[in-house]
């Protein structure tokens, strides 16, 4: 047989084609084994995914918990107020404003995404109520005391988009503490870390 002859170049080793096929197969196997963390319908195909679209409180994964953000007390304080410019709104007053429901994903830069059905107040309605100009940037601030993503800046394009909400509810229930109770930002096409949770102040820039 030719393959045992010493002149056969690929005897016992990987040929160039074999090597390239192997690298491609390794990339394919790893992709399939982890893709479920970001493509929900494939989660059952992916036994090594670091997240599952339906794990976590209210069937949505969490990146930073309320405990890690150290907001366990401030977020559930009955004296909570959302300050928007000169406005100061209690949770009850926020709930009394016109509510809208949107289906929007959390898309984490760490490589997972999951979709939620969010209900809350449109950011542009709040800004109008507070008299913030159409073309102003705003900064959304969290109750979180430390961390580089404690605040996020929202451009007029995002702030005025009808899909951009200050969500009070997820899947019909009040937000879980880990999802940003009492109130979080959720906007389309925005990295998860900029969907600020535990919002307590909106400042015009």
């Amino acid at each position, binding site marked *: 047989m030719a393959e045992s002859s010493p002149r056969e170049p690929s005897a016992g080793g990987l040929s160039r084609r074999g090597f390239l096929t192997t690298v491609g197969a390794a990339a394919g*196997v790893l992709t399939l084994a982890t893709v479920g963390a970001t493509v929900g319908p494939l989660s059952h195909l992916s036994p090594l995914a670091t997240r599952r679209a339906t*794990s976590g409180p209210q069937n949505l*994964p969490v990146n930073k918990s309320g405990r890690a953000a150290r907001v366990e007390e401030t977020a559930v304080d009955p004296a909570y107020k959302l300050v928007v410019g000169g406005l100061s709104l209690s949770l009850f007053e926020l709930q009394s404003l016109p509510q809208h429901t949107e289906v929007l994903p959390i898309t984490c830069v760490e490589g997972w995404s999951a979709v939620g059905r969010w209900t809350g107040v449109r950011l542009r309605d709040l800004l109008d109520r507070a008299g913030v100009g159409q073309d102003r940037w705003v900064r959304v601030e969290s109750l979180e005391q430390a961390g580089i993503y404690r605040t996020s800046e929202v451009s007029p394009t995002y702030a005025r988009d009808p899909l951009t909400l200050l969500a009070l509810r997820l899947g019909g229930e009040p937000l879980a503490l880990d999802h940003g109770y009492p109130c979080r930002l959720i906007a389309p096409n925005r990295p998860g870390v900029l969907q600020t949770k535990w919002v307590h102040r909106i400042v015009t820039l």
Partner: protein
Amino acid sequence: MRRLLYGAGAVLVVWGLYGLFTATRHPRPVPWLQFFVGAVAVHDLVVAPAVIVIGVLLARLVTARFRPYVISGLFISGVVLLVGLPLVMGKGLRSDNPSIQPLDYTRGLIITLAIVWAGVALAMLISVSRRKNTSPR
């Protein structure tokens, strides 16, 4: 020419070290050093010897005809283990956030490796049947 290259390299090294201590507000050179030296040490002391030993065993135990398939399988398994072992060991788990790494990764790793080796076995079978079909000519 050589001195020029040494000089350019030295400038880059100094620039890197400068960045290590100034790029963030709280520089942490020790974890960097662990990674920088550790990665090389793990490669030279663990990965390379393991590959050599496995290569010797392969040459003794597996016929030349099937060796490329086994090499492919081991290569893919190594990449899968690189991703899967930290998950099996629970690296990155947090007690306050059960949504991180919610699956049974021991099971996941076994399933993934089983599929890889089933693929290797299938490729071997196909090659055997092809040889049988072509050799009588």
